[in-house]
């Protein structure tokens, strides 16, 4: 129970012990906060309040500072994401070649907006800065535990087909 407000801690299935090897490795090297957060996110999929408190306790860095860093960089998420993360490129070449239409198609098909997750926790949509595959614009990268897959020269039809194909796996 929280000493200040009396709230019960939220049940979580996150295993904080999994973070120990990372904290062991980086905890003593100064300036490693970003690396710690990146690897924590790799394990849990996001940065939970519990994980941030745990990192703070183990490293002595205040939670305020950790939040400061975590909210500054685009890579970090404070909310869990779906099994598949759709990273839709918003680079200049993609913008010029119709990334907005692709976003519309995804939104229409999955019923989610940028930074939202489908109710079945399968897909999360993220508009991201340039992925660097500009000659294949418009482009998206789908990240999952199986690795990263990049899809190029997207059209409204192609993007929906790609998502359908993942759904059928």
């Amino acid at each position, binding site marked *: 129970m929280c000493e200040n407000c009396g709230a019960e801690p939220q049940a979580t299935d996150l295993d904080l012990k999994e973070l120990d090897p990372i904290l062991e490795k980086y905890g003593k090297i*100064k*300036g*490693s*906060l*970003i*690396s710690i*957060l*990146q690897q924590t996110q790799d394990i849990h999929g996001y940065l939970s309040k519990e994980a941030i408190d745990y990192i703070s306790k183990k490293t002595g860095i205040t939670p305020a500072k950790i939040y*400061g*860093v975590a909210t*500054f*960089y*685009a*890579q*970090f998420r404070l909310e869990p994401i779906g099994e598949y993360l759709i990273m839709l490129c*918003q*680079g*200049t*070449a993609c*913008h*010029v*070649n119709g990334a907005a239409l692709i976003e519309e198609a995804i939104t229409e098909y999955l019923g989610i907006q940028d930074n939202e997750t489908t109710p079945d926790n399968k897909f999360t949509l993220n508009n*991201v*800065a*340039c*992925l*660097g*595959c*500009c*000659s*294949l*614009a418009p*482009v998206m990268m789908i990240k999952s535990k199986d690795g*990263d897959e*990049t*899809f*190029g020269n997207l059209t409204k039809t192609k993007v929906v087909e790609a998502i359908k194909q993942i759904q059928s796996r």
Partner: protein
Amino acid sequence: MKIVVGQGSCGVASGAKKTSDALENLISTEGLDARVELAGCVGNCYLEPIVDIYDNDKELTARYVQVQPADVPAIVESHVKNGKVLNEKLISEKDEAFLSNQKRIVLRNAGIIDPEDINEYIAIGGYEGIKKVLTTMSQDDVIEEIKVSGLRGRGGAGFPTWFKWNAAKQSPGTEKYMCCNADEGDPGAFMDRSVLEGDPHSLIEGMTIGGYAMGASEGVIYVRAEYPLAIKRLNIALGQAREKGFLGENILGSNYSYDIRIKAGAGAFVCGEETALIASLEGERGMPRLKPPFPAQKGFWQKPTNINNVETFANVPWIITEGGAAFGAMGTDKSKGTKVFALAGKIKKGGLVEVPMGLPLKDVIYGIGDGVKNDKAFKAVQMGGPSGGCIPAALIDTPVDYENINKTGAIVGSGGMIVMDEDTCMVDMARYFLDFTRKESCGKCNYCRVGTKRMLEILERITQGKGKDGDIELLEELALKIRDGSMCGLGQTAPNPVLTTIKYFRHEYEDHIYNKHCTAHYCKALITFTINDKCIGCTACARQCPVGAITGEVKGQHVVDHDKCIKCGKCEEACKFSAVIRD
């Protein structure tokens, strides 16, 4: 026989891994005498996946393009088994010109060698530069050679490289850092990714030579987390370089010790600014600070630090082995050597293009890129990303070098070149870039934090048809104040996309504001769809319309109800008779 499949990120996205797997499978099941290797991206991105066959292991016999797994059996049957080049999939002469019209120094090895095998880099003369430096040159000799070459930073600002190295060398202390900015944040630029993925050893060698020149004890590569393949290949390359003694204690038996490590960035455009990058390396929020002190005096952990871009370092081994004078012989009076451009947008042949500085824009866009997609009218080219600007068609003869591009109001920047055609709305482009800088502003300076937000609001209202008299002047006023009132490059250059589009495309702004009309027929709030007499009454559009705004008899001309129309454009897509007109 050696078969090489280009596998940069864009190649893989086009299916290169599948093609490579198909080749390997077929060759092993048929027991043929050939091996399949990988390489980085050669730069003809529009032709991926690309398969190169070297009959005698050394000379390229045939380059096959757009090879999908289904094409593999035919190529293996004809070329691998019977030694006959398969013409159907062979690169065309015109496409070959895409490469032969270039002058490749930075990209000299990309797409040719296996980036995951150090021996291939060594076999074509790699690490000769560092050998020469450590055995025959003093620190000052190296700096002098770079000075002779005239190499300027390729990350955007174009600052002379030798000057920075010299300043870091002259700073007192033994603990010094050589950093590489591989946080390629400009949307629309991907040359650094190509070097990292295709030729990581040239970066490592360049950084080691630079490290020796300034007396660095350690090198750090700050690379974007969005480039997982680049990080993987860099790690492999660093491991191999250590094994061969090009990194570590007493490199190649000399008394110089130096190693390089990777630090993955976490996604912040402002970290391209060197003091912000240093803050990020130290695990902090990547916020810039005032200069001086310059990083050369007080940088990473308050020690003398030098930061260069990937492309800058990739030039260094070449300069050392071929001589600074050879590099200086290329380019213009003040902009020496070559520059890599990432040609993308509405271009027929997009990809990486490396040309001597000073080549006219036209030669790059039409000579190499083959002009605008679908033969539409060329409107402008955007250079320098969010810090740059749009150069209009009238200035297409501008030579591409630092000085001449600056005169147009754009900048060379890291080398992104996004081609725009008649369908691109210039007000929307300005809005797009301001949306980007507004999100990426670190928030330290008022003018940048609040000013970009206000400019974005004005641009948004113009594109939504709510522009007011005086908006253009207000934008101009804000632009100058943000430029003058911001501490770092991000804020100082953020108004450039707006200033250049107002300068060259003021009529488009006026069209939006006064006529409530989008010149390029792009801005949704300002377009209308009508159906003309080409309509044969097939009803395809009416069936697609999600709001029932289209009515009409079968075989009769249909009509759009503008009050109901939500401008989704589905009717335009559905019509096979070009009867739906967007205005």
